[in-house]
């Protein structure tokens, strides 16, 4: 038995070493296809839409499967695996890395490899340390930032449901994207004479009670780009519907699962925008010359069922300009 374990361990070390030494060769020598690695930290609907959008857009730019090979890796929430994935990507000498959201982008930029990075949806690229100026990417990484258009959001709310004074902010404190948005929202409300009540959660089992705690204290709910609340949106919207409170979300996914309205760019589109930047780079433009993009073209998305349940009358110009979901 002792011999067996020693043998097993030796085999393991040798295979890893040889694979990591020669792995790079057989990956690129298979064919001349461009190797693109996609790194995602965890599974959620928005990230999947972004990834699908990116891949589809690259294909429509004319990179066929024989010309461009995607290697998609997901750390499934485990940060230690995130580092291992980054090392594997560097080791197999990818031509381009695509990262979704903040932590994978930071982890890969910190590898200081020569491989260019295109990121999708980092809400504050400068704050995350992956570039010092949005216009001049200096760390071999550029991509899209989907800062939620806070003022547009509140203007929409005042137009659809005039007279809202106190907003309930429901979010989880562990996501940098959602905390950034919340801070902007608070700033906006402070300067515009609106008040707010907060309810924070740390895991999805707390969402229901947090939402209920806001009932009766607020006129409307505002949900940032928060994947935890997004997953629990059906629960939140049920509670809000019963209490006749409109819920303003931050993505079309939230509206599809029962939130009243949002101003959003679809996650698929963010992925597509990043793909356009990747295409630009693969055509020969260096990363430093592709400024990061803060996504700014938005559409109003409204959930018809929720609007009916809340008894909200929609004006003619909204009816013609907004996208309606059931």
């Amino acid at each position: 038995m002792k011999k067996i374990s020693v043998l097993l361990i030796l085999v393991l070390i040798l295979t890893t070493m040889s694979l990591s030494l020669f792995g790079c060769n057989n990956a690129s020598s298979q064919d001349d296809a461009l190797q693109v690695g996609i790194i995602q930290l965890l599974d959620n609907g928005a990230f999947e839409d972004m990834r699908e959008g990116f891949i589809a857009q690259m294909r429509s730019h004319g990179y066929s499967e024989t010309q461009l090979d995607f290697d998609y890796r997901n750390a499934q929430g485990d940060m230690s695996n995130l580092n291992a994935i980054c090392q594997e990507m560097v080791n197999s000498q990818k031509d381009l890395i695509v990262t979704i959201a903040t932590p994978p982008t930071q982890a890969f930029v910190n590898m200081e490899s020569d491989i260019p990075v295109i990121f999708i949806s980092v809400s504050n690229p400068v704050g995350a340390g992956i570039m010092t100026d949005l216009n001049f990417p200096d760390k071999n990484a550029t991509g899209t930032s989907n800062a939620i258009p806070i003022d547009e959001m509140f203007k929409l709310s005042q137009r659809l449901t005039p007279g809202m004074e106190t907003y309930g902010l429901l979010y989880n404190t562990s996501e940098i994207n959602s905390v950034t948005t919340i801070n902007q929202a608070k700033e906006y409300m402070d300067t515009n004479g609106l008040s707010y009540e907060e309810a924070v959660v740390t895991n999805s089992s707390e969402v229901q009670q947090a939402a209920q705690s806001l009932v009766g204290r607020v006129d409307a709910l505002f949900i940032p780009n928060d994947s935890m609340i997004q997953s629990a949106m059906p629960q939140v919207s049920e509670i809000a519907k019963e209490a006749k409170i409109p819920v303003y979300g931050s993505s079309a996914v939230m509206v599809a699962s029962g939130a009243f309205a949002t101003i959003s760019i679809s996650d698929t589109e963010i992925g597509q925008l990043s793909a356009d930047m990747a295409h630009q780079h693969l055509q020969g433009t260096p990363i430093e010359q592709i400024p990061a993009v803060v996504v700014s073209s938005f559409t109003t998305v409204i959930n018809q069922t929720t609007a009916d349940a809340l008894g909200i009358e929609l004006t003619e110009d909204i009816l013609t300009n907004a996208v309606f979901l059931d």
Partner: protein
Amino acid sequence: MTLFLGSLQLGLIYGLLALGIYITFKIMHIPDLTADGSFTLGLAVSAVLASAGYPVVGIFLAVLAGALAGATTGFLQTKIAIHPILSGIITMSGLYSINLYVMGARSNITLIGTPTLFSMARSRFDFVDFNLLRLVILLFFALGLWGALTWFFKTHLGLSIRATGDNEAMVKSSSINITATKIIAISLANACIALSGAIVAQYQGFADISSGVGIMVIGLASVIIGELIPLRKGVANGFLTAILGSILYRLMIALALQSNLFPAYALKLISALIVGIALSLPALRHYLAFRKIRKESV
């Protein structure tokens, strides 16, 4: 080569975590769930101080903070007599808010571009390959902690702690204060775990509040895999197997990542299989030994 060196580096960093888990799980025989919280606490303290320009101080304070977190769990377990699993969970949950407080209510702190232990070493020894340099630094930490723990667990106090883990009733009757030995052991364990977190933050260039998720399982897996390494029993070898187990675990993950056989969503299943197979080897060992005896007796 990056992957192989990288796996060794990660193996050594999480080896520090495995040392902590080894103390509670193998020496004290206590299931300590504080790890998820104390790991992130170490990460947070180290990141905050590094981003303020004090990476080395950050590591020291992280260790202290981890020890304090461990002492809290120890206190709940002994003085308040809360079940060990529950007291770990209580500390871990409380630490979530404390960690956010430490990080200034932000869930993510970047260290990209700020001086860390590793970037400072690089500017001093710029003639050495960065990957090798990092490996040497981590080796220094792992061997240093290994040496320190081995020494400590051979002192009078260390022996009392080991005895408490082996036979509480006996130790109690020989008038050793088992409350103290338990609290010291759990503090020491969480100090190791926080040290691991502190180094991870400076190694990966950022601290994120969700970095500690599932860290306990990684530590346990390392300890269990380490048990397969045929070394003589003893405290020094025991600690060594924990570190080696962590390295082996990382190598296995690297192998799983290397092969394109599995779809991306299979990663967790693969790590579960690795741990499952490692756990089943002792049973297989028993079975083989039993068969051998049966054969010989026929």
